[in-house]
């Protein structure tokens, strides 16, 4: 009488596509940025000529790799902003326009819905942008090479470094996964707020941490929460370490993954405490989407 529940795997592709249909900035903003970068490569080689005429630039390692790293970093910085807005909106908009009643009329569990949104924010979009950065960097190199390879002075900077290139892309890829784990509790917290807040999602996202920070300061006179959040949001551990290590890995005379302490990051208690917190928050988000009835 009852059909077997549709295997979750069958629905995944369309659940992910649905997120990209609704939140077009997830892919449009990075694409626009990549296009702008390529256009810049096309039109700025002239400026380089003037600059280079002052004498050979002193650049450590490969300037091409440096440019690739810069572009990748800027792309991922843009991504963090776009994903912040995505996470704030993704479980709130469906309640605001009551389309949750349509989504819930289909055999898609709340678990699948919430996990899809988490995966889109932490893996799908970062991996997509990784591929975008990879391709854009290759095209940009091609453009620059064609423009300046006959120029003796500039041509010496536009050289290909296979080892450095592999190392850079390898390190960035590893960081995509490490950062997915590191930021999981942040993303999960945003999902919880998005599923819970009746209005003013952004206020509800920012207010509780601020209350905790200043509450702690007033009551205990300490700043522990502030430090924990600072580290978690990547001003310390994740962001700086990532870009610093990636830079060293790209330019340093070492092996492919020498620059990063993967084992150290993956065995850090803070990493796994964060993952456990994230699991709790995701569970809470599923319960809220499931049991809340405010339509």
């Amino acid at each position, binding site marked *: 009488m009852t059909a077997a529940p549709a295997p979750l795997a*069958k629905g995944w592709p369309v659940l992910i596509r649905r997120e990209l*249909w609704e939140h077009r900035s997830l892919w449009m903003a990075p694409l626009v940025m990549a296009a702008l970068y390529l256009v810049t490569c096309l039109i700025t080689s002239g400026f380089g000529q003037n600059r280079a005429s002052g004498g050979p630039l002193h650049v450590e390692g490969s300037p091409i790799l440096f440019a690739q790293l810069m572009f990748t970093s800027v792309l991922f910085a843009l991504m963090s902003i776009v994903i912040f807005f995505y996470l704030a909106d993704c479980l709130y908009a469906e309640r605001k326009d009551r389309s949750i009643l349509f989504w819930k009329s289909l055999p898609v569990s709340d678990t699948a819905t919430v996990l899809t949104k988490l995966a889109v924010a932490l893996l799908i979009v970062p991996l997509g942008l990784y591929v975008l950065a990879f391709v854009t960097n290759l095209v940009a190199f091609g453009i620059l090479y064609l423009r300046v390879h006959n120029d003796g002075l500039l041509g010496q900077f536009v050289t290909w470094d296979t080892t450095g290139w592999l190392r850079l892309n390898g390190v960035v890829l590893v960081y995509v996964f490490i950062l997915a784990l590191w930021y999981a509790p942040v993303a999960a917290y945003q999902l919880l707020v998005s599923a819970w807040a009746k209005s003013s999602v952004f206020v509800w996202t920012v207010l509780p941490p601020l209350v905790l920070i200043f509450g702690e300061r007033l009551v205990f006179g300490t700043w522990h929460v502030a430090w924990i959040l600072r580290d978690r949001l990547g001003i310390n551990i994740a962001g700086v370490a990532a870009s610093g290590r990636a830079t060293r890995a790209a330019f340093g005379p070492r092996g492919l993954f020498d620059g990063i302490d993967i084992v150290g990051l993956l065995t850090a208690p803070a990493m796994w405490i964060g993952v456990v917190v994230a699991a709790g928050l995701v569970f809470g988000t599923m319960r809220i989407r499931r049991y809340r009835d405010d339509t």
Partner: protein
Amino acid sequence: MTTIIEARGLTKVYNGTRALDGVSFTVAAGRIVGLIGPNGAGKTTALKSILGLTPFEGDLRVFGKNPYADRYSLMQEVCFIADVAVLPKWLRVSQALDYVAGVHPRFERARAEEFLRKTDIEMHKRVRELSKGMVTQLHLALILAIDARLLVLDEPTLGLDLLYRRQFYDTLLNDYFDKERTILLTTHQVEEIENLLTDVIFINRGHIALDSPVEGLAERYVQLNVRPDQAGRARELQPFYEREIFGRIAMFFEGRSSEELVPLGEIRTPSIADLFVAKMQGAPA
């Protein structure tokens, strides 16, 4: 006959108000049941409970399952249109088809496309670009292409003009309904669905006021139009509701034989709409 929905002592309390107060009813396969009641009577609460969208007290089984605990698997058997305006504005028609095709194992895309071809809806349009009537047509196209066994409609034609409303119910009856399928619907516009329904459930202030197959109504209820000079004699037979129409008094009786009433005036079978008004405004049975 297979029982699709079985409610026993279904109760739902919102902030101290009993939206549903120990309601019991059953819905059998192959029926078209109208759940009819004034605003705030508990209709939508009952539907939400059946769809697993809200927790409840009491016993409620849909296809033998607890809808609140098994919403996910239940939604393979059940379709619903909760409201006319719930398709998200950003969704394109083609995306709506892609999505339902991707997640629903019983969706037959070609059927939805065939239905849409008969309308003015274009595949690349977004929901926000469609008229309210077209949005309902789109939703209906999705629902018709799903081989579900229970369809729940909550005010599916609210805010639509007469043409769309008529078309909606015609399509439902001709293209969707068969003896295997069951439809449960609520609406304010009782007149429009009178001929559609096989069963009616009247609900008022969280209680069931009437639960009957439509064919049984004629035997149970009689409307008598009497001249005022006959009114006294008619009242002795205890009508549960009366009202004046064009100088006559329409009285509504339950459980009285035609033979008793014929000498007093003109008798007829009350329409569901009239019966509803009589039941809601008459003394509580």
